[in-house]
Structure formats: C-alpha cells, structure tokens
C-alpha cells in the first residue's frame, strides 16, 4: 500500500526484528486511549502498512470484517497507509487474538499489543 518509499523502508523489518516496533507502542497507546476507556480494552489490534496490499482491498477488509461504514474504513486505511500503522480495534486479549488471526487470513500485516504497556 506504500506510496512513500522513505517511510516504508523503516516499517518493513521482519516482525520481531530490532527496530520493528520502534515508537509504535506509545503512539498506539495514545490512539487506543482515545478510542475507548482503558480498563475494558487493555489490548489493541495494530495493522501495519505494507507495499503490496491494495488500498481498496484494505478498506474492503475493514468494512466487511469489522462492519465499519465505508468512510470510517477508508479513514482507517489511510491512517495505516500514512502513519505506517494504525490501531484498528481495542478490547480483550482473546478478542484481539481472534482479530489478528482474521487479519492474517486476509493477508494483512497485523499484531496485537497491550494498551497499558
């Protein structure tokens, strides 16, 4: 989905590689905190930008899987694209693990992390 080579190169180390997470946790935490109250939503689903998946496809996945309105799905897709990642959902650990697995079914690059750290 990347049209921004300079940012894409920093976002593409293999999962788990040093530098792969970088500044993500605190930013993701801020985003997630804005989305929901903390105690009930301790985990966040993060979708990462990649240079392969079509923008229309990512938007379609957000819309069809999460049941989002087209405008909201499009906004989240652009956030992933422009920021390199976005918190797409927050909730329980089990719920976010299910979402990660579903995103991997779709071929999206997703991970989960604790909102509170």
């Amino acid at each position, binding site marked *: 989905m990347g049209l921004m080579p300079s940012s*894409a190169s920093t976002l593409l180390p293999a999962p788990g590689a040093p530098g792969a997470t970088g500044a993500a946790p605190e930013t993701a935490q801020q985003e997630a905190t804005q989305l929901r109250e903390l105690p009930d939503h301790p985990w966040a689903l993060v979708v990462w930008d990649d240079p392969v998946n079509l923008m229309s496809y990512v938007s379609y996945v957000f819309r069809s899987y999460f049941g989002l309105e087209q405008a909201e799905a499009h906004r989240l897709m652009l956030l992933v694209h422009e920021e390199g990642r976005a918190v797409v959902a927050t909730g329980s650990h089990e719920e976010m693990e299910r979402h990660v697995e579903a995103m991997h079914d779709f071929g999206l690059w997703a991970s989960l992390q604790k909102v509170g750290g």
Partner: protein
Amino acid sequence: MRPFRRTGDRLDAELEGAEARLIVNLAAQLITLLRDRSGDADEAHSVDSEGLDVFARLEQRGPRSISVDPVLARLLPDAYRDDEQASAEFRRLTEPGLIDRKVAQLRTVVADLTSIETVTEEDAEDLPVDLDEAGALSWLRAFTDLRLALASRLGIESETPRGPEEPDEDTVGLLAVYDWLGLVQESLVAALQAEPLSS
C-alpha cells in the same frame, strides 16, 4: 482478460487460457510451499507445475523458524512484535489452521479454473469465470497471498523502486505478473463493492 464485474450476486470475468494456467501454476507452487511448512508434502505432486519455479528459489526445507523464508514470514507473521514467546505460542495454536485456510483458498481458485477449462471448448480464447460472493472472497484472499509471495520473491519493499535495479528477464516477467494480478484483484474488489455488502 476482461476485468470482474458484478451482475446481481454474481461476479464474472474472462481470462485467457494462458492467464488461467499461470494462476494455477503459481497457486500450485504456493500450496506446495505452505504444505511443506506444515509438514504435509503430499500436495506437492498433485498439481503439475511448469515453467518458472518461483517460490522454490529459496530453501524451502530446513529449520522451522519462520524467519528462514521471507514468503512464509509475510504470509504467517508474528502476532506479537515485542514478545517472542507469546508469538511462538500463538503460532503453535493458530498456524496449522491458518495454513489450512490459505491452502483451501488457493485450491478453490485452482479448482474453479480447472473446471472452467475442462468445460470450455479447447479453441476458446476466453475462459468465463463466474463466482458467487463466497467464491469471490476466496479469490480475493488467494490473490492477496499470491501477490504477497511474489512481492517477497521480487524484493518489493516499497512502491518505488521495485525489485533489483537491473532485473533479469525472469524478474521482468514476474513483475508484469505481479502487476497483472493486482489489476485482476482491484477489479474484483471494485465489483464486490458495486452493491451494498450483504452482511
């Protein structure tokens, strides 16, 4: 190729015979790679693959670490970026199912194309592809995995520049295939959203 369009609840397109065979070939190779990962190599010989052995360029066997093969690392990513142990445990529980579903999607595409080719007259130039929404979803996901796999093999890490600076003939061909798969997928996404989603 005539791109996908929606008619009622059907999604239809037309592919040339060579295009259909190319997709079948790539899908068969990716099935082999995924099956090899899950330790079930029987599938490897169920479909004849011809031409470029795209996904076999790197070592397929060997250590079970996911980092060995970039295609597998991208198709079956770590769920936790900052917790190796949690990722390994999640992988142990979910990877077999994930692989099974990815293989099933690829098989659906292969079966669809194979059955179309069988019932279509041999000298026909265009093969009609006609999918319901469930079939279209399998195609979408399978095409995504094929493009992700090709991109890994081609070293596509950003929109530009793509791949090696002085690509050899095979690479140029694969880049064209990669772009073409993207066109087909784009048309399918657009066709699927041409009417409100049913769910």
